[in-house]
């Protein structure tokens, strides 16, 4: 389809910024060779573009990033308690029951007395240093590997909202464990430190 000179001239800004196709570029360059005004506009707009690209700005930079990270953190903390229960929380409950069973069994085999004490406390006083919810797609195996790898155990839950309370076993590093959970959003949907 043949375009009118007026239509072709509308491509001038895109000739200047180098985004025209070869065919469109040839078309407007041919037109410019015959149209002194269009050629003059080209030079003027090219100078304007150069001026704009050379313009130095002082953007928020690191301060803006720090502000962003601060507010994102606040927003994350604020949204966790109000998160709606996942539709698949029943599945998570089933998976967590399996984890609890496995861990309880492990403790039972290692030290029967200690595991019984811990389990009794979990159901009675809701202890735990972390409150988490698991991703709907997380499997029992991935949850188990993550928790065991971080010296974590489930000490209570699931709640009606599908939340679990975790604690580190003796000698575990709670801060490192919490950070590891937060780095695994495909397994753990939310992590919240319990207020002392």
């Amino acid at each position, binding site marked *: 389809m043949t375009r009118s000179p007026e239509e072709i001239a*509308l*491509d001038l*800004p895109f000739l200047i910024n180098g985004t025209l196709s070869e065919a469109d570029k040839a078309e407007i360059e041919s037109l410019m060779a015959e149209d002194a005004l269009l050629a*003059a506009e080209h030079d*003027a707009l*090219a100078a304007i573009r150069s*001026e704009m690209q050379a313009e130095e700005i002082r953007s928020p930079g690191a301060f803006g990033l720090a502000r962003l990270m601060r507010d994102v953190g606040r927003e994350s903390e604020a949204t966790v308690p109000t998160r709606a229960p996942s539709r698949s929380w029943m599945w998570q409950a089933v998976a967590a029951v399996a984890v609890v069973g496995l861990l309880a069994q492990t403790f039972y085999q290692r030290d029967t007395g200690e595991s019984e004490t811990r389990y009794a406390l979990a159901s009675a006083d809701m202890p735990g240093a972390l409150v988490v919810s698991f991703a709907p797609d997380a499997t029992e195996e991935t949850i188990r590997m993550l928790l065991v790898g971080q010296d974590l155990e489930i000490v209570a839950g699931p709640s009606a909202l599908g939340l679990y309370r975790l604690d580190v076993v003796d000698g575990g590093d709670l801060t490192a464990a919490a950070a590891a959970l*937060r780095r695994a959003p495909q397994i753990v949907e939310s992590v919240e430190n319990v207020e002392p």
Partner: protein
Amino acid sequence: MTENHHFLVQQVGKGDKEALAALYRAYERPVYKFIVSRLNDPHEASDILHEVFMDIWRVAASFEGRSQVRTWIFGIAYRKVIDVHRKRARVTVTDEVPETGDVAEAADAGYAARQEAEHLRVCMGTLKDEHRSAISLAFYEDMTCAEIAEIAGVPEGTIKSRLHHAKKLLLHCLSGRIKGRAVA
């Protein structure tokens, strides 16, 4: 690069703050430049930039990858600034090309001169936001017509028309300022 940024958005959607920080580092300067060119207020532009990235954090999970990450982010910024203008109920300075003034004369008047930054800033400030946006995306970011149209949510023909009007208004304004300086 594009695939890398697409991956970053996916990670942000999963709650990865490091990925958000990486996106911020990649786009902070061009997006800020785009915003400040439309608002002409560095402090307000900083706030809008912050809101843009907060929105990215909130909605990244819904990004389907049908558009480029760059056009998606600039689209968010584009709409944010429109909201600011609506709140301000700002009166548009001008939308008509004055009868006086001569584009050819303006073009011949030597706009290639390096010292015209201030004139350019002032004249950009006289444009309607939709004209300024089109110029900014075309000349700061060297975007294609299709990309600008996607960001603004209008047909490509509309973008070409906006750029045509913006060009005439800019050249007219600059011509007037150059003549004023010559008389002075």
